[in-house]
């Protein structure tokens, strides 16, 4: 039943939305115009922009990869999982423990290696870990990060979320904040809060771009390759397998899925495994790319991943990937106007808030694909 008042409010809110949209549109046009003019008169060098875009894409791939899991749990279990960031950290530590064990076998105590070298002195750089010198250890670690985190995510679900399966999105969200907190400090308890380097330096290639160079090293390449392969794998799995179809059915209408005979509990388990596995892999690749690991990088990444997922539209895995790339690139591009890097995160959060205000359904219109 729509009353006159309803129509009036709808009209009013529509106009504020349109005003916001116009304001954002003008802002984007101004920035793009400034960018083009700057490039033309040489005040912004093309290679610098190229570097920002490259870094943004790499960062965006990680966020997109991690965002798939967040988006899946959001659409299938109906809650914003604030523990996702710490799952990423946990995965990175699990995976890198494996890499250290394989690459440094015999060079140090097993405990020291499995805990990713908690004490100074004998870490990744000393062991010479890198994709070029110890490729087997890296791939094994990535695999371990994926599988280990998948199982770990199922365990967390069993302990924390399963007892309250029927509860609404908000109680589950609050629970996930508790899980995030417990998990983060459990990681510190086991792995120590020491931040440490993990990789030795690798050869890099300088690519000529008009007026300068953009350098890409072997770890950047590994990140791109692994992320693309994993994303393709998820795409094929969701589109071609029965499980993917069941997931889409569940995110569409849970009761109907149950009535149709879809084993919802099993689908939920697979959701956690895939989401957790991708989160763990993303964490592992992030550490490979940045070369350092610490106990809270996943938590710091979490809100950015939320930004990416919301930008793309919650429930859409392609949205998560595109959102990650857009957020990553715009974060780095913002340094053209706001130098120093203090405002990259703020830029991402503001973009997220704007998207929520103008188009809460996200770029992909909230069409659930997974």
């Amino acid at each position, binding site marked *: *039943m729509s009353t006159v008042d309803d129509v009036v409010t709808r009209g009013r*809110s529509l106009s*504020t939305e349109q005003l*916001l949209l116009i304001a954002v549109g003008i802002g984007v046009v101004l920035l793009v115009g400034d960018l083009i003019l700057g490039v033309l008169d040489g005040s912004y060098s093309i290679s610098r922009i190229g570097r920002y875009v490259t870094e943004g894409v790499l960062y965006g791939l990680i966020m997109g990869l991690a965002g798939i899991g967040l988006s899946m749990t959001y659409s299938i279990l109906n*809650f*914003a999982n604030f523990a996702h960031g710490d799952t990423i950290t946990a995965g990175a530590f699990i995976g890198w423990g494996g890499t250290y064990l394989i690459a440094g076998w015999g060079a140090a*105590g*097993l*405990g*020291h290696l*499995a*805990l990713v070298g*908690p*004490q100074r002195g004998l870490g990744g750089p000393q062991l010479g870990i890198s994709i070029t010198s110890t490729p087997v250890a890296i791939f094994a670690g990535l695999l371990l990060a994926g599988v280990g985190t998948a199982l770990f995510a199922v365990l967390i679900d069993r302990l*924390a979320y399963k*007892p*309250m399966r029927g*509860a*609404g*999105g*908000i*109680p589950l*969200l*609050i*629970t996930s*904040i*508790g*899980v*995030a*907190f*417990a*998990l*983060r*400090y*459990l990681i*510190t*308890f*086991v*792995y*120590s*809060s020491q931040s440490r380097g993990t990789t030795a330096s690798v050869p890099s290639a300088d690519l000529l771009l008009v007026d300068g160079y953009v350098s890409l090293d072997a770890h950047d390449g590994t990140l791109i390759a692994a992320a693309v392969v994993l994303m393709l794998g998820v795409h094929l799995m969701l589109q071609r397998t029965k499980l993917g179809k069941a997931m889409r059915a569940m995110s569409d209408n849970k009761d109907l899925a149950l009535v149709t005979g879809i084993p919802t509990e099993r689908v939920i388990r697979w959701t956690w495994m895939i989401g957790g596995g991708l989160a763990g892999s993303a964490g592992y690749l992030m550490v490979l790319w940045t070369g350092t690991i610490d106990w809270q990088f996943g938590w710091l990444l979490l*809100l950015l991943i*939320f*930004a990416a997922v*919301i930008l793309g539209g919650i429930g859409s895995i392609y949205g998560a990937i595109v959102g990650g790339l857009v957020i990553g690139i715009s974060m780095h591009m913002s340094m053209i106007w*706001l130098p*120093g890097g*203090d*405002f990259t*995160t*703020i830029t991402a*959060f*503001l973009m*997220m*808030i704007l998207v*929520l*205000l103008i188009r*809460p359904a996200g770029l992909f219109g909230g069409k659930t694909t997974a």
Partner: protein
Amino acid sequence: MSSTANADRRTQLESLWEHDAVKIIAVIGAIYIVYALIGLILGYSLDGIVNTLRRMTYLIAVYGMVTLALNLHWGYTGLFNIGVAGFMAIGLYVTMMLAKPADPGGAAQYAGLGLPMPIAIIGGVVAAGLAGLVVALPALRLRADYFAITTIAFAEIVRLGITSDALQQFTILGAELGTGGGRGLIRNYDDPMNVIFQLEIFSSFVDLTNSLFGFGPTQARALAYSIVLVIVLAGIYWLIQRTSRSPFGRVLKAIREDEEAAQSLGKDTNMFKIKVFVLGCALMGLAGILWRFRRTGVTPEAFRPHVTFYIWIALIIGGAGSNTGSILGSGLFVAVLFEGPQYLRRVIDQLVAIGDAPNTFAGAVGPLLSANPVPLVRYTFAEFLTLQFVIMGVALILLMQRRPDGLLGHREETAAAIPLGARPSAAGGGSGGGGGSDSVSGGGFAHSQTRDQNDDSDQQTDGGIDAETVGTQADTNDRSEDSESSQGSESSDNTYQTDDSTTDGETQ
């Protein structure tokens, strides 16, 4: 014979327990006794014990203030604010920037405006409220979980903003200001409590505490400060209690229960939500100011999302929707989860000699293979402060699983102006569910979720009950609605969902 006397006494005690003041005094008193005992075990002198209790009072008062403000947001209106730390930061930073002297004086300090303290505090509170307005105006159209993400993103924007070098020092309208960046601000203005400390009568307070507990002047000042905080807490409690029982408060509860129904009764729910969000944020700003404006300085680190998390635990322990619960919750949070583990560690340290701990987890777990758990125990003990946070997280999970309503959240503080407890047996006539009062509520809102849709007769009688004093309403509801509240606690989660079906019944 004696059993009936006992039973009498029990019912007497139970009815005494129904008073909120008794609950608060009993719980806080128990906390004091336990901590006094801990002080005795640790061999503290009298002034040490009183000082411990003073510290507890200070923490409980500050956390209580913020929890009350959050209760106004979430407990009463259903606004899922997880950006509490951001609003506290704005309040404190603005106050400090306004109060700091215009002439920086020392080397590494930044200029302020040098305004008198009361004006600076008002400025901080207003700034926090305005920040709430900026967030609320657009964000209230969003779903609860999106709103949550927006508020936490806002809090992080605030924290990163005050950390950034760009705002370390800036000029606005010709006035030089600065947030100090990552290094923070140092308090180089006079002690804001000097208003009290310079009173004639205060010197006799110092003498009194000296003769009673052996306090020095610094400790006496700290004690006076804590007492002032308790008074402010009582003021905020009174304010929110009044708000929640006013017609304004009843609309808030109606919004929490069913926003569409409140709208359909002609309430501009967005306006109400904005007002209450701004009020809550201003109170959070005030709490942030009182929390730290007397300390030697502040860094952005103080406003990490942890603070928000603490407040949420306190709120959930006490039970969302109950002001008394908020105070009990912050008391229990501070005593058991926040300070408890540290004191427990000290007590254990005092009683048992615990040897040197291994440096890493591997060194602790390795000996388990040879059935030697001692290193693991030592390691656990050494890392107890890390584990404290794990305990907090687990506590939140368990609370959400087992008792999502907390201690007092099961109380249905209904949106009605009249008690809904005693129902006359006569079947209702034709009066509609919403009739009988100028407030939105009538009978239906608080119960519409917990009761079946076809339960018409109940709903209709609600309108016809005589009005009683509003003050005793919560208590009578508490007892007489036990049968419903057990149902209500199960399904209270649905309350926050958009549940279209319920509105149909209301707007007959």
